[in-house]
């Protein structure tokens, strides 16, 4: 876990222009409306003629690891995974630099029964949701894309 949590607070001046300030608080803070953040916003509000409109809090974790050398597919190659939520609305997720073993023989479609693919689609269905909190429920299909264009080779 990072040593601190980054907070970005955005203000708007009387002409409608938006500007943002970044600062850090200790990494135990998890709420944008934490008393520490509210105290800093209150102090800034006294200094400025603009008004605070949003607060964004960023918490990061850096896993250990390294990229695979001489990989078949780099980050421009993406796996495009399509799902629908509880209301039937579509959601899609992209994974870069695909492991070749999850691709079908045509190297375009992704084997949905592959154990690694199943682990991913199940994790998404279990934990992901839409921005409005509708849960992701159905995995539809997955295929490989490069720069948003299907490959033919």
């Amino acid at each position, binding site marked *: 876990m990072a040593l601190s949590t980054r907070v970005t607070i955005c203000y708007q001046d009387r002409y409608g222009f938006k500007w943002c300030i970044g600062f850090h608080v200790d990494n135990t803070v998890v709420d944008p409306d934490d008393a520490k953040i509210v105290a800093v916003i209150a*102090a800034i509000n006294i200094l400025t003629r603009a008004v605070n*409109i949003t607060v964004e809090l960023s918490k990061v974790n850096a896993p250990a*690891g390294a990229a695979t050398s001489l990989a078949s597919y780099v*980050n421009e190659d993406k796996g495009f995974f399509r799902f629908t939520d509880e209301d039937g609305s579509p959601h899609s997720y992209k994974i870069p630099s695909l492991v070749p073993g999850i691709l079908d023989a045509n190297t375009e479609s992704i084997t949905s029964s592959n154990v*690694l693919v199943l682990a991913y689609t*199940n994790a998404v269905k279990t934990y992901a949701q839409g921005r409005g909190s509708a849960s992701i429920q159905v995995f539809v299909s997955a295929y490989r894309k490069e720069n948003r264009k299907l490959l033919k080779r």
Partner: protein
Amino acid sequence: MALVLEPSNELILHFVDYNGKHATSLYWLDETETDPAVGGALAIANAAQGISNAYLSVVEILRRARESAPGSATAGPYDRFSDKLKFFFVAEDGSPVIIEIGSPKETVLNTDHKTANRSNSAVSGFLTALQDNAVSAEGKAITYLQSANRIRPSGRKKQ
């Protein structure tokens, strides 16, 4: 006035491939998922790493809130966002912490209109608020205010 939380937290997986190119994968999680090292964030991150040859360098969770009644910005000689008051703080490890406040009130400036009046209660209150509540990126306490100067908007040499 109150901060209203969004119903979902954003999960961003930052991948770096062997050539050093960066790519991200975005998700929304339940608002209770606040730690990128556990729970749903960890599960999706591990599963995504399983099907990618790129290195998952950072797992990031963003939580957002919006002010429900922000009020109205007021008029003054430096009321544009491009007029800024640049604060240069120093943390206990000597690292700089720089914060630029747009649209500063003229009452916090010295008579030269270029530097902040350190004895002004708003300026000293800002320093106290940061010392009590904020830290540097490395998690070190903010110790003192080194300088605070007004930055003129580009193209405006005198005013």
